């Protein structure tokens, strides 16, 4: 009896240990979660299954990791097209959502990085390139890509190291004013004439709020979004002055958050007018978008990728459109800020040639991706509205969302490379806005905050230069 008890004790101990390991999985591009056996990953399990089904010949298996929180049909269709177009290389992709950064970090440390990965969520191209984890992709920029791509996609310094190109962003992302044409009409405004100036935007917001009788509001400002001020201040500042994102004056090569003040005060005025959608202090972007789609918000600022999302993921109950973000009447808008998105890189692994083969296909065939997930892309052919092939989708707001000729991708943005001590601009401004919402006069506090931000960001910049994270030439 005693021996039986000991035997059971050993068995249960073993079961406990085994059950604690070998759990978890990753999501593959087809949306299913594949259980991960210990010592393997989902892609190799899936790929092994697929290659064993291929009659004759061994295909090189390429893994791609992205940060998406769900499957991107555009990427899936493009990968399918590549896999069908040739016999030598088989590609799969996995998306990791919020865990992406830590998963990539562990994979790189453990020499098990995928063949292609997306640089986002704090992962920068230059950091990985400096480590020797990447290979240049200049040879993937074929004549086809050169002819059809927006040339400012190749300008950001962050994609280069020692003059070599490590990434080509395929998307171009900017911010536009999205407005509800039905609410415009209800408030007696012309639904085809969105506001051209911030003064008009304020007036229209008031009218829509009055006409709404407590059911609809003029403007949505989601302060629950950590980077909100990047959306609602920086594009306007970029278009009308030398001050780019996060207060960086690209002419004087110094920080000037004072230039943000007038825009911040504008939104405080909107709040005091009562034109903001309620709950703005903790309002998240998804709740805001859901309410906009439901037709309760007159205007808000969002990314140019939204027409695709509204058409494919959110049931929109209103007629809406996109327009350039208004500027103050005294200012003149030049080029609006944009950034290259979906920065994929090829890692320095054992399948470099195969990965580059796919990477070239990826760059040359963005039109395929756009027929399933329409977003503005650097390849002008993909942005052709006739080529979108999305007749079954309720695709609205396309004219200004897919317009890229008034956009400019900056060459250098220092805030991406700074390790800032203390709260960043967004947190500081949101805290001040919360105080203003309580009725406090924040003018003096705003001046103090601006001075402190200039000081801390400048110090962060100096430290980044001293540590080699920013080249001195970039800030001369």
């Amino acid at each position, binding site marked *: 009896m005693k021996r039986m*008890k*000991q035997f059971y*004790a*050993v068995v*249960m*101990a073993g079961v*406990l*240990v085994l059950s*604690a390991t070998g759990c978890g999985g990753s999501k593959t591009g087809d949306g299913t979660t594949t259980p991960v056996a210990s010592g393997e990953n989902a892609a190799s399990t899936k790929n092994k299954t697929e290659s064993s089904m291929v009659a004759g010949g061994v295909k090189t298996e390429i893994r791609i990791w992205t940060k998406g929180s769900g499957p991107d049909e555009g990427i899936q269709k493009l990968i399918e097209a590549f896999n069908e177009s040739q016999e030598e290389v088989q590609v799969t992709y996995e998306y990791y959502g*919020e865990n992406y*950064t*830590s998963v990539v*970090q562990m994979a*790189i440390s453990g020499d098990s990085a995928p063949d292609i990965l997306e640089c986002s969520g*704090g*992962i*920068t191209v230059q*950091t*990985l390139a*400096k*480590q020797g984890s990447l290979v240049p992709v200049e040879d993937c920029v074929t004549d086809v890509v050169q002819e059809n791509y927006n040339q400012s996609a190749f300008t950001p310094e962050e994609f280069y190291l020692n003059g070599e190109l490590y990434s080509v962003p395929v998307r171009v992302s900017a911010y536009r004013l999205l407005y509800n044409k039905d609410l415009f009409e209800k408030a007696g405004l012309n639904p085809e004439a969105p506001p051209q100036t911030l003064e008009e935007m304020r007036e229209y917001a008031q009218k829509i709020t009055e006409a709404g009788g407590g059911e609809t509001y003029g403007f949505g400002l989601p*302060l*629950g979004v*950590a*980077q909100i001020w990047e959306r609602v201040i920086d594009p306007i500042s970029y278009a009308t002055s030398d001050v780019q994102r*996060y207060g960086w004056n690209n002419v004087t090569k110094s920080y000037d958050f004072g230039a943000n003040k007038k825009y911040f005060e504008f939104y405080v005025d909107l709040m005091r007018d009562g034109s903001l*959608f*309620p*709950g703005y*202090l*903790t309002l*998240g972007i998804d*709740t805001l978008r859901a*309410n906009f789609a439901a037709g*309760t918000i007159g205007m808000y600022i969002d990314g140019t990728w939204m027409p695709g999302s509204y058409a494919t993921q959110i049931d929109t109950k209103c007629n809406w459109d996109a327009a350039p973000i208004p500027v103050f009447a005294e200012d003149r808008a030049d080029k609006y800020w944009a950034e290259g998105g979906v920065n994929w890189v090829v890692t320095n692994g054992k399948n470099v040639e195969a990965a580059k083969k796919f990477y070239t296909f990826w760059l040359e065939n963005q039109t395929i991706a756009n027929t399933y997930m329409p977003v503005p892309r650097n390849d002008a052919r993909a942005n052709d509205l006739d080529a979108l092939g999305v007749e079954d989708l309720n695709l609205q707001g396309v004219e200004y969302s897919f317009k890229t000729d008034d956009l400019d991708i900056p060459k250098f943005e220092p*805030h*991406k*490379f*700074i*390790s*800032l*001590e*203390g*709260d*960043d601009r*967004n*947190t500081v401004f*949101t*805290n*001040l*806005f*919360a*105080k203003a*919402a*309580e009725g406090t006069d924040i003018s003096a506090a705003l001046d103090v905050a601006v001075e402190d931000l200039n000081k801390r960001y400048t110090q*962060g910049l100096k430290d980044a230069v001293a*540590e080699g*994270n920013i080249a001195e030439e970039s800030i001369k």
Partner: protein
Amino acid sequence: MATVKGNGRKKRLWAEIKGYRQQYLMMTPTIIMVMMFGIYPLLYVLYYSFFKYDGFSEPLFIGLRNYVRLFQDSTYWNSVKNTLQMGVAIPLVQIPCSLLLAVLLNQKFRGQSLARAVIFVPNITSTAIMAIVFYFMFASYNGIINGVLMKLGVIDRAIEWFGNGMMAKTVIVLFCTWSGVGFYMVLFLSALQSIPSEVYESAKVDGANKVQTFFGITIPMMGSMFQTITALCIMNALKLFDSVKALTNGGPGNSTEVMTMYIYRYFFETMGTAQQGYASAVSILSTILVMVITLVYVRCTRKMNY
């Protein structure tokens, strides 16, 4: 002589280990997992707290600079203040509610089991999901709470429940009470049921009423259990994360940001390069603070061990 004594001790120790080998064997996986997933990560974090580290580049040794910065970081101390406020407010509401429910549900009546189950259900539901539901319930636009209060005529315009720090913290306390009261109620129930019935009978014979019985017998006899339950409640309140993240995300501004959210922000959400070295220092100091508070509480309440 010393060798004989030493050998004797070794023999006794070995005999004891041999005698309890099943128990040690059963404990081994837990010890391994605690070492792997508790002690090792703690040492790892302690190590990186002396470095400037973004998770990818080579760590740069900076000595105590992270800790110096931490002591001057007013936003962190604001999060400590918020955490302490939660650490006081939540137990103050949760413990009396749990105890009251336990006393009521300790009596036999029809539907007693169903009532216990219903109150316990929030404990087996995802905190994040419940918090999101609470967020929508307390939303200023079309939130059901405002709708009901306006319908009853209690208010004539919607309350901005998340409009300022104090209101937002009130909602968080309400949520934590609702979601956690079932667990503590079960603990109090088991404590109540361990009190011998003869004691109550004697008190009844002596003419004690219900209130006197409750404060004179029930509470003192639950002493050590009371201490443990309250310590658990305080520690859980000090480690709050998912409910605050889902309800307010630290807002408005960072008026409800707690220590755990502050750590999370610096590990995963900083603009620019990640500051995992600084976040590690914040983690270490926060852990020490929670330990100190717990030890102070245990020391102050040691007389409750009956």
